[in-house]
């Protein structure tokens, strides 16, 4: 009996075990989260370097640094790696894994073995896709037919890699949904769940519902190339537009797979550093589900100029506007949370504020593109590139960086240098805007995307954008160095450095192997800031 008690009192952090096998065979959701975090971050950096190369080519109007074909290969690599390796699994799988059991008061996810199997499948998918990319592909990440059905690059391997990655995504989503339903601690009712959990839940639904459709689409593309099936080939009675319909039926919801987890992160960071309860909890929670639902009804807005009927275009344009409603609900509620809060500008908070600012620009320019008349002019121009990067970097990546800074002490049990983190944020924020804001103007003036060379009249804006990419790259470099050196030489993190009320902050940093010694009894939501003895902090 005595031994029993002592064994429970000994705190063994989950990072304690060392060695390759202890990682690759782990079933601990926190370790699997790290596996995803490391893999996706490495791919993010690789694809980021490729982006810098592209921007370097665009410094001058002529295609003098790389030839046009190499440029096509570069944007294919950049897009495929960013989308399939980094941004889809990035926040959802890494922070989802780490946070979901901690936040709902569970010892692990519902199916821990399936969880590590999903990671192996992710690795397998990336390996297959990378082998496919060895033969330099230039299809872009969207694999549009008829080009993808006829080019002699390894489209079959690449799309099969994406198919396998989809499996990983489906199984992770399935695991998270079951975990949220079945593993919540006593008293953790649905309306007490942290908003990150609501966001992850909405994301998981999207992963389950949308991914199988892209799976079958890519299988059809593979049979098109291997068996001579002609669904997308007009010569055989097929229709290339059908591929676009199928592809975007997944890939538009996939955009929300990328952004909704970041919205969840922001909902966690804002109240902690405003010392106020989150404003409009239910509105934020259900708007995640609302976005998920509407996201299935808007796919054809990618195809306004592909030759769809006018009626269809008008309906899809209207439905696209609807997405703005749940999204705006979130933004309004976040700003209402900030209102009269005692705001602390911690680096994580800076990223969260950056998210709100940049994502609002990204979201509103999306409404421009959803408007039929404007889209005919702006389609496939730099305006789209700018819009998409404002959502994906200004939104998702800002959320990702914010999450990294916010949960870093909990995850690794160390502190990073806060001043350097703020400096890095400054360069990231400024660099990002200098890179992508000029691209809105370029797009309006008619500069098409995906070209290695351009008319001389665009040179000033184009080179400005390239200089911005250097600032952005420098900022990320500083951030990475700061976070890595924190791991090595940072001071030990306290249990709850921000005085947060969420469950994950009530246990040691880093958490012990099975998270909670006793499964907690939850009696309230986690956003009751500003009520109890806050001034002591």
């Amino acid at each position, binding site marked *: 009996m005595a*031994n*029993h008690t002592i*064994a*429970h009192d000994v705190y*063994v952090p989950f990072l304690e075990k060392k060695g390759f096998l202890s990682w690759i065979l782990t*079933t*601990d959701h926190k370790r699997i989260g790290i596996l995803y975090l490391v893999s996706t971050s490495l791919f993010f950096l690789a694809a980021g370097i490729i982006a810098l190369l592209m921007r370097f080519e665009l410094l001058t109007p002529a295609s003098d640094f790389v030839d046009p074909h190499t440029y096509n290969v570069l944007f294919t690599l950049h897009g495929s790696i960013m989308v399939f390796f980094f941004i889809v699994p990035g926040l959802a799988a890494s922070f989802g894994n780490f946070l979901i059991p901690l936040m709902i008061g569970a*010892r*692990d996810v*519902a*199916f*821990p*073995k399936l969880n590590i199997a999903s990671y192996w499948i992710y690795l397998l998918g990336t390996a297959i896709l990378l082998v496919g990319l060895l033969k330099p592909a230039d299809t872009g990440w969207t694999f549009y037919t008829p080009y993808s059905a006829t080019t002699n690059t390894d489209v079959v391997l690449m799309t099969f890699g994406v198919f396998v990655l989809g499996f990983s995504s*489906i199984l992770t989503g*399935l*695991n998270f*949904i*079951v975990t949220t*339903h*079945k*593993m919540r601690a006593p008293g953790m009712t649905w309306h007490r769940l942290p908003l990150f959990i609501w966001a992850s839940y909405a994301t998981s639904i999207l992963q*389950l*519902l949308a*991914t*199988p*459709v892209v*799976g*079958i*689409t890519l*299988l*059809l593309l593979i*049979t098109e190339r291997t*068996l*001579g*099936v*002609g*669904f997308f080939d007009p010569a*055989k*009675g*097929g*229709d290339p537009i*059908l591929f676009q319909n*199928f592809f975007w039926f997944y890939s538009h919801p996939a955009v929300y797979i990328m952004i909704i987890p970041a919205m969840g992160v922001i909902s966690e960071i804002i109240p902690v550093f405003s010392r106020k309860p989150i404003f409009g909890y239910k509105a934020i929670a259900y708007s995640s589900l609302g976005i998920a639902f509407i996201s299935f009804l808007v796919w054809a807005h990618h195809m306004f100029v592909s030759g769809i009927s006018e009626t269809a275009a008008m309906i899809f344009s209207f439905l696209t506007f609807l997405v703005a409603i749940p999204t705006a609900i979130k933004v309004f509620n976040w700003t209402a949370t900030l209102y009269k809060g005692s705001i602390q500008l911690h680096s994580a908070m800076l990223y969260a504020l950056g998210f709100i600012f940049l994502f609002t620009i990204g979201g509103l320019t999306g409404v421009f593109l959803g408007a039929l008349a404007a889209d005919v002019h702006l389609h496939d121009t730099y305006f789209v590139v700018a819009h998409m990067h404002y959502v994906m970097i200004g939104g998702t990546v800002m959320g990702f960086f914010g999450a990294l800074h916010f949960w870093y002490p909990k995850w690794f049990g160390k502190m990073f240098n806060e001043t350097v983190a703020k400096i890095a944020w400054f360069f990231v924020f400024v660099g990002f805007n200098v890179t992508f804001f000029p691209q809105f103007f370029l797009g309006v003036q008619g500069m098409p995307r995906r070209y290695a060379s351009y008319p001389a009249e665009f040179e000033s804006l184009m080179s400005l954008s390239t200089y911005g990419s250097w600032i952005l790259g420098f900022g990320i470099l500083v951030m990475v160095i700061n976070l890595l050196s924190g791991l090595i030489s940072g001071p030990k993190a306290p249990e709850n450095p921000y005085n947060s009320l969420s469950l994950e902050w009530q246990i040691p940093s880093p958490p012990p*192997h*099975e998270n909670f010694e006793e499964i907690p009894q939850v009696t309230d939501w986690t956003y009751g800031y500003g009520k109890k003895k806050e001034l002591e902090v």
Partner: protein
Amino acid sequence: MAEADIEQPHGHHMDPATEYSSSKLGMWLFLGTEILLFGGLFAAYAIFHARFPEMFYEQHLELNRTMGAINTCVLIFSSLTMAMGVSAIKLGRQKTAAILILITIICGLTFGVIKYFEYSAKFSHHIYPDTSIFFSLYFLMTGLHMIHVFIGLGILAVVFVLTLKGKFDAKYNTPIEMGGLYWHLVDLIWIYLFPLLYLIG
């Protein structure tokens, strides 16, 4: 006690009732994704059938309705034996359950054999997946279904061996039930494929 917990952290991190209901929810979600996977093909079927109704009618006459009908009966019967197998193990009758699962497996194999004859008849008439849109759909839909039959047979084979070894009883039989759910999905999809491909009127 505590040390054993650390060594086998996830062996029993859920009570059996939660484990059962979690597996069931997870399985149903997974079956949903399988339906969506086939959903893409059903959508393609709807689009191309609307575009080429005559071609679909004329070419479907090449398919062997008798074999298709026999296969439909075989699969429906196998779903019955599977369901009986699940009921049997819930009553604790291990041997009966094992026999019923075995019959299910034999039905699945029979389905595969009949399908093999159908495919080879098509090939001998020089009908391949690239012959026409209709036959593309025929081969892809039945082919993807066949892959699912094989996966289902694999699951059932494992479940059968474990049942023989006495791993399941009235209290714990989740894998049999999950395998059964998967097998019913395989059956269900075929019930849609048969009229769509063989009975166009």
